[in-house]
C-alpha cells in the first residue's frame, strides 16, 4: 500500500445505504486508526454485513464515500483481509489446510497454476504465525471449526492487510476456540498494526479488546466506546423502545428490544444457561448473523 501514507486504513464519510424506501444506515462517519478494533453490532437486517460488503467494494453506496488507505473502496483490494464465519466444507473437497491459506497468497492470480517457491515459503510462514503447521497437510474438511478459523486468519493476513474485516468469525465455535481466535486477532493488531472491523451479534468474547462500538439499528446508529454505547438509555433511544443492559460476571446482556423473541431463540444455541428468559440476549442484536 503505497498511497496510504498518513491516510487511515478505513475512512467512511457520510455513507448511506438504502434499498428502495428502506434505509439501513445514513450519515455514517467512521475513521479507523491503525491497530484499532471496532465491533459492529446490531439486530439482524440492520446492515452489518452490507457495511462490510460496501468496504470490500461489492456494494455501492447510496451516498457518501468509503476510502481504504486513502483511495476509494474497490473490488479485490490487497490491503484488506477478510475473515468469514466458519462453514463446514463438504467432505471430499480437494483442499488441504495449506491450500486454503495459499488462496490468500495467490488465489486471485491467473496463469499457469504451478506454485512458486516464494508462495510456498509465504504459506509456511503464515501457518507458523497462527500455529497451524501440525495439520498443514490435512484436508480442511477433517479439521475442527477452531482450526479452520485459524487458517482463515492466516489466509486473511496473507496480503499484509492494514485492515481486517471479520464477519461473525467466532460463530459456532466453543468458548475455548473463540478465545484462541480472538487472541490471534489481537496479535495481528498489536504486532502488525492492522485495524479490525468486526461484525458480531455477541460482543462478549472480544469485549476486552474492543476500542469502539458501532451499533446499527433501525436506520440509525451510535458510535463510541463500549461503555458509552452499550447502555440502557442509549440503546432505548436507538431502538425507540425500553431496553436494559445488564452486567453479569464481566458479560453484557441486553434485555428487551423489539426483536426479543428472536433473540430468545438465538440464546438457546449460544448461551444455554441464560436462554430461559424471553428477551434476554448477549449484546447485542439477534439472529444468525448471516444476513445478506
Amino acid at each position, binding site marked *: 500500500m503505497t498511497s496510504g501514507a498518513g491516510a487511515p486504513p478505513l475512512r467512511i464519510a457520510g455513507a448511506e445505504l438504502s434499498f428502495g424506501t428502506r434505509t439501513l444506515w445514513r450519515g455514517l462517519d467512521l475513521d479507523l486508526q491503525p491497530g484499532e478494533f471496532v465491533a459492529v453490532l446490531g439486530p439482524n437486517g440492520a446492515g452489518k454485513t452490507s457495511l462490510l460488503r460496501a468496504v470490500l467494494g461489492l456494494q455501492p453506496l447510496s451516498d457518501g464515500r468509503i476510502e481504504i488507505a486513502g483511495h476509494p473502496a474497490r473490488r479485490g483490494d490487497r490491503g484488506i483481509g477478510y475473515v468469514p464465519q466458519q462453514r463446514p466444507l463438504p467432505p471430499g473437497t*480437494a483442499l*488441504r489446510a495449506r491450500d486454503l491459506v495459499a*488462496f*490468500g497468497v495467490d*488465489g*486471485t492470480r491467473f496463469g499457469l497454476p504451478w506454485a512458486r517457491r516464494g508462495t510456498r515459503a509465504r504459506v509456511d510462514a503464515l501457518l507458523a504465525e497462527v500455529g497451524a503447521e501440525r495439520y498443514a497437510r490435512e484436508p*480442511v474438511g477433517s479439521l475442527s471449526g477452531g*482450526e479452520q478459523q485459524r487458517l482463515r486468519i492466516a489466509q486473511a493476513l496473507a496480503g499484509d492487510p492494514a485492515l481486517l474485516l471479520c464477519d461473525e468469525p467466532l460463530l459456532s465455535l466453543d468458548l475455548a476456540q473463540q478465545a484462541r481466535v480472538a487472541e490471534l486477532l489481537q496479535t495481528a493488531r498489536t504486532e502488525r498494526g492492522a485495524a479490525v472491523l468486526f461484525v458480531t451479534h455477541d460482543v462478549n468474547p472480544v469485549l476486552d479488546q474492543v476500542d469502539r462500538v458501532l451499533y446499527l439499528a433501525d436506520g440509525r446508529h451510535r458510535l463510541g466506546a463500549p461503555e458509552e454505547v452499550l447502555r440502557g438509555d442509549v440503546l432505548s433511544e436507538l431502538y425507540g423502545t425500553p431496553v436494559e443492559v445488564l452486567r453479569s460476571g464481566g458479560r453484557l446482556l441486553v434485555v428487551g428490544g423489539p426483536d426479543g423473541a428472536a433473540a430468545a431463540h438465538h440464546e438457546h444455541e449460544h448461551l444455554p444457561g441464560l436462554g430461559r428468559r424471553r428477551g434476554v440476549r448477549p449484546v447485542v442484536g439477534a439472529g444468525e448473523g448471516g444476513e445478506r
Partner: protein
Amino acid sequence: MDLGSLFDFSDYGAILALVANSVIAAAVLGVVGGLVGVMVLQRDLAFAVHGISELSFAGAAGALLVGADVVLGAGAGALAAALLIGVLGARARERNSVIGVLMPAGLGLGILFLALYPGRAANKFGLLTGQIVAVDDPSVVRLIVISAVVLLGLLVIWRPLSFDSLDPEVAAARGVPARALSVAFLLLLGLIVAVSVQIIGALLVLALLVTPAAAALRVSASPVVVPVLAMTFGLVAALGGILLAIAAALPVSPFITTISFLIWVVCRIVGSRRGRTRARRVRSPVVEETAEATA
C-alpha cells in the same frame, strides 16, 4: 458366448493401424477429460455435463441430417447449452432446473433429427453410444487442437477458478470475477463435451468427464495429486477401452465406462480405509492441543 471368443487378437496390429487416429483421440480426451472432471466435481456440475452432452447430441444429429460437419454441429449444440446454463443458472438450484429443462428438449430434437435422417443406422446409434469410426487425419488434428485449447484455457484460469469453487465467499471478497469465470469454464466444458460425444457418445460422456475425477477425489485431497490421478485414470480408461473394443469388435463406450467404474470402485475402497486411519491420526493431536491451551 464365452470370454475367449469375445476378444479376437488375430490381425490386431493391422486393425490397430487402421484406427490409430481413434486411439490417439481417445488418449487425448482421456487426459483432458480427467482434468476438466476435477473442476466439474468441485463446481458441482456433473448434471450440467449431462445436459450439455444431450444438446451436443442434438446439434450433431441436426448436422448429420442436413449433411453438415457432425463435429461442428456437436460443438454448436454444446456451446449453446453451456452459454444458456452459464447465463441463466447462476445459482445451483436455478442451474439444475435450467439443465433439467434443456436436457429432454435437446434429446427430443436429436431423436427427431435422427428419425428424419435417411442414412446408415450405425451413424445414428454412434452419436448416442460412441463408435470407433475411422477418424481421419484432419479430424484428429482438430480434436487435438480443441483439446489443447481447453487444456491451456483451463490451466490459465485454474487458480482463481479453484478459489471461487472451494471458497466462494472469500474469493468474492478478494475480487475474483466469479460470473465471468463460471461462464468461461462452462464454455471450455462445452468444447470438450462436443469432441467427446464423437468418440464415447452423448449418453456416456460422464464416464470420461466425471468418473476419473470422482475416483481421484476419493484417495487424495492434494490439489496436485488429484488432477494428476484424474488424468491418469482418464487415460487408462479411454485407451484401455478403445484397445479392448477393437479386439472385441464391439462399441467402445461399454469398455470405457466399465474400466472407469472399476477404477472408481477400487479408489472408494482405498479411500474409505485411509479415511479411517486419518480420522484416528487427526483426532489424537487435537486432544493434546486442548491440554496445551488449558495448561
